[in-house]
């Protein structure tokens, strides 16, 4: 049921599967999995607006080579930068096969970005190895490569970056094979169920390591002691390693170059955090979902360089929250989903460098808002699912740098929204709340810079859509309150920048609406589920050549209609429903 229910948009950071999402996931808001803010996923969408350029001669040659690829037996006579470009193109276009790969033997390639490439197994490692000392980076994530396959990397002494995320066939023995690659500065093996503490002992010689990613490795407890000598280490990701405990934090206490530490969903408690006091360069700490309380702030207040702190879904209560006032360097703070009340906001009052504050689902109400009034650097404020109402909004009216504000599922009413009318920097506004109506929207027409407007559950009717004409820069719009008819869609048809449009649940919409939408050729995602749209209406969407996702669930058409339409008119459509 294409989003029939209102949704939460702040998934666990631990569920960050950005490398694994299928194509369809990229075009929906719910793919936003970064805890620092929603702006990242949107930046991606915004970047897709680029215009097509005339093809360079290099690219024309590359396409030609791809066409005739089986005619080439070797590229080893080419300069490296040329063969690298051919290789990258073949990977990108999924034209690399066993036999084609052979042509790249001894090409002195530097980068083999073969992550998630189908068919990549140990039999390819011989060619990988033949790049010899030229090879600088290898991505074999998601491949079938085994411990024995990694033996081939021994000769490639200059490798700096190695990634074998999601490689189920690599274990401690594999790590032994790479233990001599002393130039490695980046190593990543997410979601490995086989590697244990013993395996980590083979990392102790990788003295150049700067970045190490062990996300979702459930058996590495006790192994972090082997990292003690890695003095250059700046970034360590232990998210979702639910085996990690306070004792493991002790092993990290001497890694004073650490700038980024992620231990979300581990078993680390306040006691474990005390071992981090000496990490004076630490700028990012992610403890989402850890069983820590505000008592850990005592230890964190020693970290003068801390910019990003994620304490969402922890065990915070109002108790001991006064120590927040010591975290003066913070720019980004996430306190979502904790049992904290408005009483703690007074301790944030002095954090004047804050640019992003997340209070999602906390027991925050109007009383606390006064303490945010002085946070003039704030760009991103998340108040979803709080008890903030209209009277609290007046304290936000001076936050002139605010770019993103989420008021979904709050008790804010139409009357309060005029307090927001001066927030001229606002680009993203979420008013997904049932009590918001046309009158509230009318108070916001000054906000002409808005690029993202979410009115999912708001009761917007045709007359309210007149206000939408003010928002010419809109890239995404959601109005799913059930009150729209084809008449209202007339006011949407001129929002030609739109890339995402969700008009589902408006069950009066007919094929006429699709006809009106047909001029919105920038659209990448369209949802008109639960409407009276029929198979005949589909023809109006032929012009939407950029469309990647089309959802028409519970309409008057079936999966066969969709399939036929997709294959005949919109082959670029990667996700369509019903299917």
């Amino acid at each position: 049921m294409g989003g029939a229910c209102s949704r939460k948009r702040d998934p666990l950071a631990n569920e960050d599967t950005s490398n694994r999402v299928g194509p369809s996931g990229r075009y929906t808001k719910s793919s936003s999995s970064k805890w620092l803010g929603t702006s990242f996923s949107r930046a991606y969408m915004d970047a897709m607006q680029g215009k097509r350029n005339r093809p360079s001669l290099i690219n024309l040659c590359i396409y030609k080579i791809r066409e005739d690829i089986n005619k080439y037996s070797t590229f080893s006579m080419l300069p490296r930068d040329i063969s690298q470009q051919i290789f990258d193109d073949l990977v990108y276009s999924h034209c690399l096969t066993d036999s084609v790969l052979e042509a790249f033997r001894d090409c002195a390639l530097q980068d083999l970005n073969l992550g998630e490439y189908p068919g990549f197994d140990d039999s390819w490692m011989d060619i990988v190895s033949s790049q010899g000392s030229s090879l600088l980076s290898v991505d074999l994530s998601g491949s079938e490569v085994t411990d024995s396959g990694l033996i081939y990397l021994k000769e490639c002494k200059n490798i700096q970056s190695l990634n074998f995320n999601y490689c189920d066939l690599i274990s401690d023995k594999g790590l032994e094979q790479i233990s001599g690659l002393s130039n490695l500065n980046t190593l990543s093996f997410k979601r490995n169920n086989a590697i244990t503490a013993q395996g980590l002992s083979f990392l102790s010689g990788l003295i150049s390591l700067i970045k190490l990613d062990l996300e979702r490795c459930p058996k590495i407890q006790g192994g972090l002691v082997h990292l003690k000598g890695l003095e250059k280490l700046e970034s360590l990701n232990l998210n979702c390693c639910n085996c990690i405990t306070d004792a493991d934090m002790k092993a990290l206490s001497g890694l004073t170059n650490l700038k980024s530490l992620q231990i979300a969903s581990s078993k680390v408690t306040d006691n474990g955090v005390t071992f981090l006091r000496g990490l004076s360069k630490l700028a990012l700490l992610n403890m989402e979902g850890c069983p820590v309380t505000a008592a850990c702030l005592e230890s964190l207040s020693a970290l003068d360089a801390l910019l990003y702190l994620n304490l969402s879904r922890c065990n915070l209560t109002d108790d001991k929250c006064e120590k927040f006032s010591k975290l003066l360097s913070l720019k980004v703070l996430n306190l979502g989903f904790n049992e904290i009340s408005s009483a703690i906001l007074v301790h944030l009052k002095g954090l004047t460098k804050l640019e992003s504050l997340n209070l999602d689902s906390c027991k925050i109400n109007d009383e606390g808002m006064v303490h945010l009034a002085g946070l003039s650097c704030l760009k991103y404020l998340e108040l979803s699912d709080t008890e903030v109402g209209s009277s609290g909004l007046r304290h936000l009216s001076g936050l002139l740098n605010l770019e993103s504000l989420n008021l979904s599922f709050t008790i804010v009413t139409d009357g309060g929204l005029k307090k927001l009318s001066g927030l001229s920097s606002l680009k993203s506004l979420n008013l997904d709340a049932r009590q918001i109506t046309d009158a509230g929207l009318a108070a916001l027409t000054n906000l002409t810079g808005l690029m993202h407007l979410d009115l999912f559950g708001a009761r917007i009717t045709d007359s309210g859509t007149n206000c939408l004409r003010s928002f010419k820069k809109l890239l995404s719009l959601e109005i799913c309150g059930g009150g729209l008819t084809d008449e209202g869609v007339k006011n949407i048809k001129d929002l030609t920048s739109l890339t995402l449009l969700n008009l589902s649940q408006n069950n009066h919409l007919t094929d006429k609406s699709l006809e009106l939408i047909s001029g919105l050729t920038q659209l990448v995602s369209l949802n008109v589920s639960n409407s009276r749209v029929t198979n005949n209406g589909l023809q109006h969407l032929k012009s939407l050549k950029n469309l990647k996702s089309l959802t028409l669930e519970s309409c008057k058409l079936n999966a066969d209609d969709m399939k036929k339409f997709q294959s005949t008119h919109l082959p670029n459509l990667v996700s369509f429903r019903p299917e």
Partner: protein
Amino acid sequence: MKKEDTVKLISAEGFEFVIDKKAAMVSQTIRNMLTSPGSFAETEHGEVTFPEISTTILEKICQYFYWSLQYASGKETEFHIEPELTLELMMAANYLHT
């Protein structure tokens, strides 16, 4: 055609191609040579010699320059490349940043 509106491109074998300056500027490398003041003799004489590019390849490159201008003005035709030229052409294109 005025002389200052054209440039002469000279191949490894000494074959000369006189083409519009506008077309030659499709190549970032040639553009730099012709526009950076004082740093290249080419700027003054409007002549560029390519000791590494054969006549066949240079001819193809000149064709591409004109094709590219057409493409930019909306005439999106296909640019044909003979299979036997591809690798050598690609190396030259790489050098010419085009």
